């Protein structure tokens, strides 16, 4: 699979959410900018003085060994957590300046272990629309199109969500996130619990979404082959610190850090 071309950014949904900015950020400005970010939990430092830009490329992969802080970083990007110190910017301004509910509808999150709400797959997708309040329904994409976009037939809408397989639940979880028309999708090891064939199909779906819908993706993965094939940019973390960041091809072929070279050579 070839790395996808950077997708054009859409501002339609930003206008729908009433972003008060008069002019948008320049195309060269990062999507997310982290400055001196430290994250502590229960006295343990998870991220330490992290300064990194996540560009507006189609897919950015966060890689590194277990405990590197990849998921913790991802959770900062739609404010499921806030950093203990430092600042996170989104789209050119501090992330704390956005109303948190509106931010989370612009920046969707798909968890490693998908949780289905009670009811059918259709109910799950409708919940995502209803949470947007009055007016969200008219701007929501048709359910059939979203289901087919994630590789599920429209018949799935009437199935009980709790009875689906792991791979199907992960696809429904992705579809649910897409119902808010997000500009960015944060994926936390979306294929870790899936068998290789299902994982490959899900990854192909993600790549297609970035191409067809202009959705930027930040993805945590411990499968380096996935990062190599799907992402255009990669960030290597270890022990809560940034080791190296850059275009994926460059990172995999000519990493400047010895630690990155050793990790990429040993893993996967």
């Amino acid at each position, binding site marked *: 699979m070839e790395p996808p071309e950077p997708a054009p950014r859409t501002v339609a949904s930003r206008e729908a959410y009433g972003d008060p900015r008069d002019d948008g950020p320049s195309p060269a400005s990062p999507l997310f900018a982290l400055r001196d970010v430290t994250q502590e939990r229960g006295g343990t430092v998870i991220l330490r003085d992290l300064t990194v830009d996540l560009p507006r490329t189609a897919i950015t992969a966060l890689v590194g060994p277990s405990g590197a802080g990849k998921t913790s970083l991802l959770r900062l990007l739609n404010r*499921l957590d806030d950093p203990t110190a430092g600042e996170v910017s989104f789209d050119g301004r501090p992330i704390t300046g956005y109303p948190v*509910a509106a931010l*989370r*509808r612009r920046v969707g999150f798909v968890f490693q272990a998908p*949780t289905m709400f009670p009811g059918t797959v259709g109910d799950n997708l409708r919940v995502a629309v209803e949470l947007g309040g009055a007016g969200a329904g008219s701007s929501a994409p048709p359910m059939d199109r979203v289901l087919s976009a994630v590789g599920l037939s429209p018949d799935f809408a009437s199935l009980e969500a709790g009875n689906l397989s792991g791979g199907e639940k992960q696809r429904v979880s992705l579809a649910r996130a897409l119902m*808010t028309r997000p500009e960015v999708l944060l994926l936390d090891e979306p294929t870790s619990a899936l068998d290789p064939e299902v994982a490959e199909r899900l990854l192909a779906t993600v790549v297609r979404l970035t191409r067809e819908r202009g959705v930027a993706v930040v993805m945590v993965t411990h499968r380096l082959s996935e990062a190599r094939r799907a992402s255009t940019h990669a960030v290597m973390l270890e022990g809560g610190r940034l080791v190296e960041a850059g275009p994926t091809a460059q990172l995999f072929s000519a990493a400047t850090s010895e630690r990155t070279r050793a990790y990429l050579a040993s893993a996967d």
Partner: protein
Amino acid sequence: MPNVPSLLQTTAPAASAGTLDVTWPALAMAAVLVLVAVAVSRWQRLGLERGFVVGAVRAFVQLVAVGYILVYVFASARWWLVLLVLTVMLVSATATATRRRRGQSTAVGERRALWGISGTAMLLGSGLTLAYVTQVVLHVRPWYDPRYIIPLFGMIVGNAMNGAALAAERLASEMESRRGEVEAYLALGAMPARAAAEPARACIRWRCWRRSRRTRRGAV
């Protein structure tokens, strides 16, 4: 200052004006129960003897002190003094109900919120119940008669305190066991109250079920 009767008499128990005086010999008889508990602990090598004795002494000192205060309040029968006692009871119940949860939370704002929510809930729940029972059901006159108001509030706020503590524990455990669901709602832009709605409902259902089971047992 009104004439305050002694709490502990040296003579035999005597009923006066609907109250019973506790004599020193009667108190010593009560202490026999503590000695029985100490003996059982020693026999079974439970190592609880010291705790029993310290607890009994502490209870004795506290009850005597509170008793003197209440005797004064009962005798003076002033409305503001009754309200002061009720306030102390409410604050003490709030502190007890939130103690365990406070221990798990380090943020000052979070602790204040816990206090505010628990205190307000108990004030409204217990206060309205007391007002309804004493004024609408029992027609207590004067409305602040301490012989009725203070014991009834003690029972109501004590129950509310246990309920609040158990509800807080249960809500925390529901939130923890449903963390994935709560975070999935939040990630879709749900407000915190909406994201926590189902754990809160489960908590209330559990509490009501326990209460109704206890009520049925009582009825039987």
